[in-house]
C-alpha cells in the first residue's frame, strides 16, 4: 500500500489529491429535522386514506363438506375401498344480493363473477409435498416423461414399475371434485344451469410455457403417454382428463395447471370457472335468488380434518376480494396522523427553541 506508482521526484509518494481519496466527495446529508419529518407525516396520513380502496367486491362462501346431501358422500369417502365409486350430491343456497358486473365490457362475454373451490387445512406448502413434482416432465421433455426426476418420490413409479405421468405428490393429489351450478330464479322456478367458462383460468405463462405436452412426431397424446402410468389416485390417465376438448388434455389441462400452482397457505381457493355472460339472466352477473350446486364428490378431506368450499366473488380494480388492505391503510393513516401530532407537540415543547441543541 502507498507504493510510489511510477512517479519520481521529491514528492513521489504524495497521495493523489482526488476527492475520492481525500474523502471529500460531494454528498447530500439528509437529516431528520422538523421541516422534513412533520410535513412528511402530515402528508402520509391523508395519502394512506386515499389509498385505502373502499369498494369491496362481493363474495359468497359455501362450505359443502358435509352440507346437504354431501354428508353421505363425506362418509363414503372415509372408506378407502370405495374410492373408485362415484358419489354425487347437491347443496342449495341463496344469494341475497346480485353479483352485478359494472365495469367489464359486455363484448368480452366473460364476466367478472368467479367460481372457486376452496380447501381448508390442506398443506400444499409442505416442503416435501411442494418439491414432489417434475417441472421437466411437465414441460414436455420426453426423457423426463419416462424417467421422472427423483424429486417425485414416492410417486415416481407405480407398482408395476411404470413411470407415473405426471409424477409427484402434487399431481397425485389433484382436486377432483366437479361442480354444476344451477340458478333457480327469484323463487322456486325451473333450474337454469349457470354457464361457467372452464378454460382461461390459468396464468398465460403456465398454460403456454411452463406446461407443455410431450410430442413425438405425429403420435397422438395417448400414444406418447404409452408406457407411463396414471397417478395412483387418478381415475383416468392424463390424456383423458377433458373428454370434450382434446386440447385441454395431458399436462396442459387447466384444472391440473391450477392445482399445480401450489398455494402458499393451508387455506386457499382455486379458480374453477368464470361466469359466461352471453345469455340472460347472467348478462349483468349473477342475479340474486336461489342456487344449487351439484357436486361430484371425490376428494377426501376427512383424513386431514379439512373443509371444502365453493366461493363466488367479483373483483375490483385492485384485485379480488380483500378485506385487509383497506382497513390496514385506514389504521395506518390514523396512526400516522396521531404520531404527527405527538411529534409536533414534542417539537414545539422541546426542539423548536433549539435549547437542546446547545452544548
Amino acid at each position, binding site marked *: 500500500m502507498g507504493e510510489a506508482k511510477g512517479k519520481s521526484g521529491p*514528492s513521489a509518494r504524495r497521495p493523489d489529491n482526488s476527492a475520492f481519496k481525500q474523502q471529500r466527495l460531494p454528498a447530500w*446529508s439528509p437529516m431528520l429535522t422538523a421541516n422534513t*419529518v412533520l410535513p412528511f407525516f402530515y402528508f402520509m396520513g391523508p395519502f394512506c386514506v386515499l389509498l385505502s380502496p373502499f369498494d369491496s367486491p362481493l363474495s359468497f362462501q359455501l362450505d359443502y363438506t358435509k352440507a346437504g346431501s354431501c354428508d353421505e358422500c363425506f362418509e363414503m369417502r372415509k372408506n378407502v375401498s370405495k374410492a373408485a365409486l362415484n358419489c354425487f350430491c347437491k347443496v342449495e343456497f341463496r344469494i341475497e344480493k346480485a353479483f352485478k358486473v359494472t365495469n367489464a365490457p359486455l363484448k368480452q362475454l366473460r364476466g367478472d363473477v368467479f367460481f372457486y373451490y376452496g380447501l381448508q387445512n390442506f398443506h400444499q406448502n409442505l416442503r416435501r409435498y411442494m418439491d414432489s413434482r417434475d417441472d421437466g416432465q411437465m414441460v414436455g421433455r420426453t426423457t423426463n416423461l419416462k424417467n421422472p426426476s427423483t424429486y417425485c418420490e*414416492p410417486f415416481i413409479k407405480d407398482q408395476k414399475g411404470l413411470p407415473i405421468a405426471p409424477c409427484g405428490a402434487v399431481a397425485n393429489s389433484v382436486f377432483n371434485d366437479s361442480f354444476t351450478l344451477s340458478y333457480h330464479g327469484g323463487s322456486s322456478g325451473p333450474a337454469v344451469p349457470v354457464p361457467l367458462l372452464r378454460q382461461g383460468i390459468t396464468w398465460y405463462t403456465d398454460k403456454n410455457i411452463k406446461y407443455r405436452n410431450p410430442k413425438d412426431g405425429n403420435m397422438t397424446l395417448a400414444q406418447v403417454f404409452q408406457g407411463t402410468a396414471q397417478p395412483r389416485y387418478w381415475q383416468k390417465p392424463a390424456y383423458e382428463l377433458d373428454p370434450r376438448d382434446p386440447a385441454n388434455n395431458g399436462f396442459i389441462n387447466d384444472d391440473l395447471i391450477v392445482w399445480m400452482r*401450489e398455494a402458499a397457505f393451508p387455506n386457499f381457493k382455486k379458480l374453477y370457472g368464470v361466469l359466461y355472460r352471453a345469455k340472460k339472466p347472467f348478462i349483468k352477473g349473477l342475479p340474486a335468488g336461489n342456487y344449487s350446486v351439484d357436486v361430484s364428490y371425490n376428494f377426501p378431506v376427512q383424513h386431514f380434518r379439512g373443509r371444502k368450499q365453493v366461493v363466488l366473488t367479483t373483483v375490483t380494480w385492485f384485485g379480488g376480494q380483500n378485506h385487509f388492505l383497506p382497513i390496514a391503510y385506514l389504521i395506518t393513516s390514523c396512526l400516522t396522523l396521531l404520531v404527527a401530532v405527538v411529534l409536533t407537540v414534542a417539537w414545539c415543547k422541546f426542539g423548536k427553541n433549539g435549547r437542546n441543541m446547545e452544548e
Partner: protein
Amino acid sequence: MPLNLFEQFQRIANAYFLFLLVLQVIPQISSLSWFTTVVPLVLVLTVTAAKDATDDIVSKRVFFLCGKWMNVQVGDIIKLENNQFVTADLMLLSSSEPLNLVYIETAELDGETNLKVRQALTVTGDLGEDVEKLADFNGEVRCEPPNNRLDRFMGTLTYAGQKYPLDNEKVLLRGCTLRNTQWCFGLVLFGGPETKLMQNCGKTTFKRTSIDRLMNVLVLCIFGFLAFMCTVLAIGNCFWELNEGSNFTAFLPRQDGNEATFSAFLAFWSYVIILNTVVPISLYVSVEIIRLGNSFYIDWDGKMYHAANDTPAEARTTTLNEELGQIQYVFSDKTGTLTQNIMTFNKCSVNGKSYGESGNDQNKVDFSFNSLADPRFVFHDHSLVEAVKLENPEVHAFFRLLALCHTVMAEEKREGELFYLAQSPDEGALVTAARNFGFVFRSRTPDSVSIVEMGRQRSYELLAILDFNNVRKRMSVIVRSPEGKLSLYCKGADTIIYERLHRSCSKLMDVTTEHLNEFAGEGLRTLALAYKDLDEEYFNGWKRRHHEVSTSLDGREGKLDELYEEIEKDLLLLGATAVEDKLQDGVPQTIELLSKAHIKIWVLTGDKQETAENIGYSCNLLREEMNEVFVVSGNSPEDVRQELRSEVSPIGKCFPSHPIHFFVLIRGSELAFLRLACLCKAVICCRVTPLQKAQVVELVKKHKQAVTLAIGDGANDVSMIKAAHIGVGISGQEGMQAVLSSDYSFAQFRFLQRLLLVHGRWSYLRMCKFLRYFFYKNFTFTFVHFWYAFFCGFSAQTVYDEWFITLYNLVYTALPVLGMSLFDQDVNDAWSFQHPQLYVPGQLNLYFSKKAFFKCALHSCYSSLVLFFIPYAAVHDTVRDDGKDVADYQSFALLTQTCLLFAVTIQLGFEMSYWTAVNTFFVLGSLAMYFAVTFTMYSDGMFLTLPSAFPFIGTGRNSLNQPNIWLTILLTSILCVLPVVTYRFLFIQLCPTINDKVQVRQAKATPPPPPRRTRIRRTSSRRSGYAFSHAQGYGDLVTSGRFLRRPALPRSSGFSHAGRTTTSFSPMGRSAGYSPTGRPQNAKVSDVEVTSLQMYKTIRDPAL
C-alpha cells in the same frame, strides 16, 4: 492453493459453512438447493484467498529486506562502518579510533540523545584492521544467558590462556548506531531474537479489535439463538406431525415410515440450513473489505503526508481500523516523537534585560560583521547585536561565558570554517550563539581555550573544569585571561545558581527570575549564568587541595563535591539563556485536542526527569494550572510504596524516576501506582526501559480495560508498540524498527489527531453502522422464515425463492451497505476537529454494544412481523384482478422478498448520513439489479433451459402487475419506516447526541477555519525551566589530554558520511544533532577530516 483452502477451512466461520454444505447434501435434510451455500462460500473463499495472497507478497518483501542480517550467527566477526546500525549484540574487538574507543548513539535503545563511548579490550584492540589476524582470533566468551537488561552485561573472555572481564562497556547492543567511528570489528554474542533489544521487544501478539471480540461473542450468542429457534421449530414439527401430518400421509407418505420424532430431528437440521443466514457468511468478508477500504483512506490521506521527507501515512495493519475510534490512552515516546531533537538558542536575559523575540524572516539579525558567524544561526532581536557592538560589558561577559564554559570541541579544516562537536545538543546551541554574537570558540587544548572576541584572538588558560553531574546541575570553568585575571564561569540550573549568588545580586535576581519564568512558561530550557573573579592566592590554595583530593583513593567524589561547593559561591549573576528543544510541528495543539477528546496521554521516556518535565510543559501536556505536581521518586521499593500511599488527590504528573525501583514497583504496588496515575491529568514516566514501557501499557490494558495506543519512533518503543492495542510508528527517519512492528505509521506526531479524530472516528462509526445494519437486515430476512414455519407445518419451507436467498447478501444488499461503510461520515473532518467531544461515544462503546445489538434484534423482529403478516393478510384470500391465482406460494415468495428488499433498502437510507453519487448509484442500482435479476430468473428462457432450477417462471409478470401487490409493498414499507422515524425524531428533539448537535450546526454553517497554529503562551509561573541533556564525565575527557590531535589518516574523502549516503537511511536523523536553524542536519556531505575529537557529536556542516 489447496493448502490455502485447508487453512481457510480452519477458520471457524468457514468450517461452519462447509458443515452447512454437508448438511445440504443429505436429501432428507436439504431444505435449500446446494447452490445457495456454494455460491457464497466460493465467493468468500476466493476473496479471502486473494487477500491472503497479497498479504503473503507483502510479508515476503519484508522478509527480503531482513535477509541481509539473516545469516549472522553467534561467533561471527562483523565489521561495522560509520553510521551503521548494530544489528546483533557484539563484543567490541577493535576500532579505528585511538584507545579502541567507539562512539555510539543509543537513542533507539533508551531515547537518550548524547553519545556514549565504548572501549574494546586492549588485547583485542591490537588486532586492528588485520582481517587475517581477526580470522585467527581464537577466544572463548562465557557470559550470562540472553536477558533484557540493557544496562548490564557480565562475562569473561578467555584468550591466549588469559581471562579478561567483560562488562557493558565492551559490548555494542543491537539498536545502537555507530557514530564518528570509521570502523570497528565485533564478535557476535547474541543474534536475532536473543539480542537484548529483541528480548525487550515483547511478544508479538495477534491483535484483535474489541469489536472483533464482541462480534465473536455475538456470533456465539447467535448460534445459541439459532439452536433455540431450530429447537422451537423442531418441537413444532413434532407436534404438527403427530396431530396433522399423520392425517396427511395419504397425500404425502412419510419417508421410509419415519416417526414424528425423527421427522422433528430432520426438521431441526433443515431449519439450521434455512436460518443460517442469521450468521451470514458474508459478514466476515464484508468486515475485512470495510477495514481494507478504510486503511486505504489512511494511506491516501494527503493531510497525513509529510512533504519534507516524502512520507505518506501507512496503515500497515488492515484489521484494526475501528479501534482507532475508541482510544482512551495514548502512550507516547518523547525523543523523536514529540520533539525533533533539535535545539535552538531562542532567548536570553542579560543583566536584567530580556532579548529575543519571535519574528519573521524579514527582520533576521545580520551577522555579516562577524566573518566567523554560522550563517545558519537565526536570531530576531537586533538590540542584542547592538548591545554587543556597543561593548556593553555585561553582554560581553555573558557571551564570553558561553564561549568558555562548555565541553565542546571545535574543528577548523579551513580558515574560518568552524565545526563544533558537542556532546549534548544544548551546549552546541549555546556555543554557536556565542559564536555568532562575536565570541567565537575556536579551539582548545587540555589547558587552554582559544576564542575570538569581537575579532581579537585571545587565549584563555583553562585551569579547571568543575564538571556537570545530575546532582550538581551546573558546571564551571576556571580560566585565566590573557591579562592574567582569574575568573570562574558557571552555568547551571537557576535554582542551584541562585543559592550561590552574592548578596549584591538580589535585585538583578528578581528581574532575571521574572525572565526565567517567562522562558519556562514558553517551555524553553533555561540555564542561569554567573561568574566571579578569583583571588590568585585563594585559588592556588584551592588548586592544591583539589589536586590532593583528586589523587586520594577513598571518598574522592564526596570530597570533590565539597571542594567545588566551596569555590562556587558568591557568584555574580550574568543572566540566563533559553534554548528551545524544538517540538515536532503542532504537538501542543495535538495534545490539547486529544485531551479535549478525553484521551489521556502518558509520556514514557528513557530520558531524564528534567528534560521530560520540560517537554511536558512545552508541549502543553503539563499546564501551569496543574499546581500539584507530584513526583514519585523514591529510591527504594518501600519509599515508592509510601509515596504512592500518602498522596491523596494528586493532579499532575508522576515520575517514577529510577529504573530499578520502578521495576520493583511494577511488581509490588502496581495497582497503587495505577490508581494514582489514573487520577492524574497527565503522567510522565521517565527513566523507563523499553520493557517497562510495555509493562505500563499492559498494566493499563489489564486493569482499566481501556483501549490503548502507543506511539514511538525508535527501537526502544517497539515493546510498547507491540503491547498496546494499536501501535503507531513515526516513519521517515533512520530507524525502521518501530515502524516495522507498528500497525500504523506516519511522519509527524501531529498526524495522530487526524488518525484518531477523523479516520478512527469514521472507521468506528462506519463499522458500527455496518454491523448494526448488517445484523438488522439478516435477522429480518431470517425471522420471516420463522413466522412462515407456523403456516407450513414446520416443514422447513422457505419463504423466498432460492435464488433470492443465494443473492440477497451477495448482490442485492451487499453494495449499498458496503457503500455506506466506505463513504459515510456524520460530520466532516473540519467539524470533527472543531468538536473533539465527538470522539467520546467511541470510547464509551456507544455505537455498537450488546445493548445496541439487542435493540437491533428487536427492531428486526418488528420488521419481520410486518414483512410476513402484512403480505399474508393482504394476499392469503385474494385473487388477481382477472380472478386468477395470486395467493400461490411463488407469488407470495416474490411479494415478501420484494417487501423485504424495499424495507431494508429504505432502512439503509435512514442509516446513511452521507449520500455520495456512489451511494445513490449503489442503492438504486441494487434495487434495479434485483428486478433485473428477478425477471431474468423468472423468464421463459431460463426455465426452458433448466426447468427444475428456475421454476418461478412468469411469477414476476403475473403478480407484479397487480395493484394489490404494490399496495402491500407500500404498506409494509410505511409500517417499517414509521417507528424508526418517530423514534429518531423524538430522540433528536428530546435528548440530542453530540453528533446530532454538530450535524445541525454543520448544516447551518460553513465549516470553521482550521485553527491557526499559534504558539500557546502561558501565564508566568513559579517553576524552573531548567533542563540539560548533558552527561557527566566529559570535563575529565577534555582535560585529560587523552585525545590530542592524532595525525589524520589518509582516507577517501566523504568517508565519514558513508552510512548517510546509502538509501536505506533518510537524511532526517534522530541523532542528537544540533542545528541552529532548526533544520535537519547532515543533509549535505562535506569533506570533513576526522580528528581525535570524534567522541563528540559532530556538528558538521549543518544543513542550509
